[in-house]
């Protein structure tokens, strides 16, 4: 964040261009989240930094107006993408503000300080998780991953490389936004890791042919019983991994807010995002599309979780 502007990396343009979108308020933040310009951990950063933007904008507002602004910001962010548990984070921020007021303190100062502390804590915990992930990765491993694990898989692979372990990654392209082809390959290439791109429909083939010996994926939302939601395609990878006796590891952010995967609302996105590419339709007119953005993986498929505690 610079002054009153939050610079958000447009992940949809990687690896071709590195462009930062300027976000100045909640409406613009919601737009970058909803249009998937940023995702996963990036979204989480946008959510927290949006409060910092609004705090700056409400510098001279009364406490009542300030609280209205905090609540409005939280509501707008919560509604931006239904599958994500933004309310768990925005709820904490609003609670900080309420508590500050209750103790006759300046809520702007308290919330700002707490957000910075929270982000610092998360950074540290993510680095700790990277180290634990690297421990899981053994010399000679060939790992299948799906979508993008917000830089942590690349960091863990780089750490393995430093430790002298030879790691190979198979990345699914992850239709329709191609985060695997674009982001994951880009991140892994940048740290010098051997990465091979496959189509989403080749995952059983690489498992049956013993080309991979581990699966590592991230998670977008976690449940009290261990179920989790992640990018569409994760469920069928988990089912195939179990069928071919391949261990399945998940990076999680444990939460008890939802009981099981059945309680997670799944975002259904516009069919155009599936049937068109760069604005051009490649499927005959008359055909329909169905695009669920996420799927749920029941806990029974998970060999081990590598957890971070975001609270």
């Amino acid at each position, binding site marked *: 964040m610079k002054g009153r502007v939050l610079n958000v990396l447009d992940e949809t343009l990687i*690896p071709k261009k590195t462009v930062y979108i300027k976000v100045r308020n909640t409406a613009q933040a919601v737009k970058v989240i909803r249009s998937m310009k940023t995702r996963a951990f990036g979204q989480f950063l946008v959510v927290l930094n949006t409060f910092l933007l609004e705090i700056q904008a409400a510098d001279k507002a009364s406490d009542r107006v300030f609280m209205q602004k905090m609540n409005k910001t939280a509501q707008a962010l919560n509604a931006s993408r239904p599958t994500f548990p933004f309310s768990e984070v925005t709820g904490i921020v609003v609670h900080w503000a309420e508590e500050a007021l209750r103790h006759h303190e300046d809520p702007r100062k308290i919330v700002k300080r707490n957000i910075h502390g929270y982000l610092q804590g998360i950074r540290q915990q993510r680095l700790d998780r990277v180290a634990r992930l690297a421990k899981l990765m053994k010399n000679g491993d060939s790992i299948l991953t*799906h979508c993008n694990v917000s830089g942590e898989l690349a960091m863990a692979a780089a750490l393995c490389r430093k430790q002298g372990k030879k790691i190979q990654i*198979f990345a*699914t*392209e*992850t*239709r*329709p936004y*191609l985060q695997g*082809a*674009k982001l994951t*390959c*880009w991140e892994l*290439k940048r740290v010098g890791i*051997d*990465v*091979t*791109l*496959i*189509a*989403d*429909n*080749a*995952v*059983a*083939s*690489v498992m*049956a042919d013993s*080309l991979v010996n581990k699966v590592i994926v991230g998670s977008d939302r976690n449940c009290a019983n261990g179920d989790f939601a992640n990018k*569409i*395609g*994760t*469920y*069928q*990878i988990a*089912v*195939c991994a179990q*069928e071919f006796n391949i261990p399945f590891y998940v990076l999680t952010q444990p939460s008890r807010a939802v009981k099981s995967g*059945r309680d997670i*609302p*799944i975002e259904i996105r516009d069919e155009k995002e*599936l*049937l068109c*590419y*760069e604005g*051009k339709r*490649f*499927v*005959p007119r*008359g*055909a*329909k*599309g*169905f*695009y*669920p953005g996420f*799927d*749920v993986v029941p806990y029974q498929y998970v060999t081990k979780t590598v957890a971070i505690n975001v609270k």
Partner: protein
Amino acid sequence: MSNKKPLKHILVHGQAAPAVMDILKKKRQKTVVIPEGRPQLEAAKVNSRELLKRNMTPLVIADNMAGFMFYRNMIKEVWLAYQIGDAHGALCDIGALIYAVLAKKHRVPVLAYPAVEQKRFIGKPKEICCFCGRRVAPPAVKGYVPLLEWVPGNYIGKIHE
């Protein structure tokens, strides 16, 4: 989530022969689920066209979305297009093994039908590094593009000639 029972569809995987589309028509299918079929997207293009010709609606999904539909009880049968097949199994377009495994897990019948002939076993890396002719992966990324895979007979209920 809605309390409505989800509609159950037939999922047709691979580039099925036109005669297979006639069978779907005879079975009075209104909507047929079609995984798009990377890397060339033949299924999304050709199967859709063939279904539309016969007044059926193709419901196109990405190749990674079938699991969601099985999980939500939206698939009643899987039809795999195969190149060669016998009692031991069938050589099918890539992706067939995923749907066969999902079908086994969800107790959905799998039938195999003849496919349009696929002459290549392996595609070129650039086919997966590009989408609709545009490069999407960073330079120097390797691509692995199997186009056919073997589905063992124990996953398949019946192989139709």
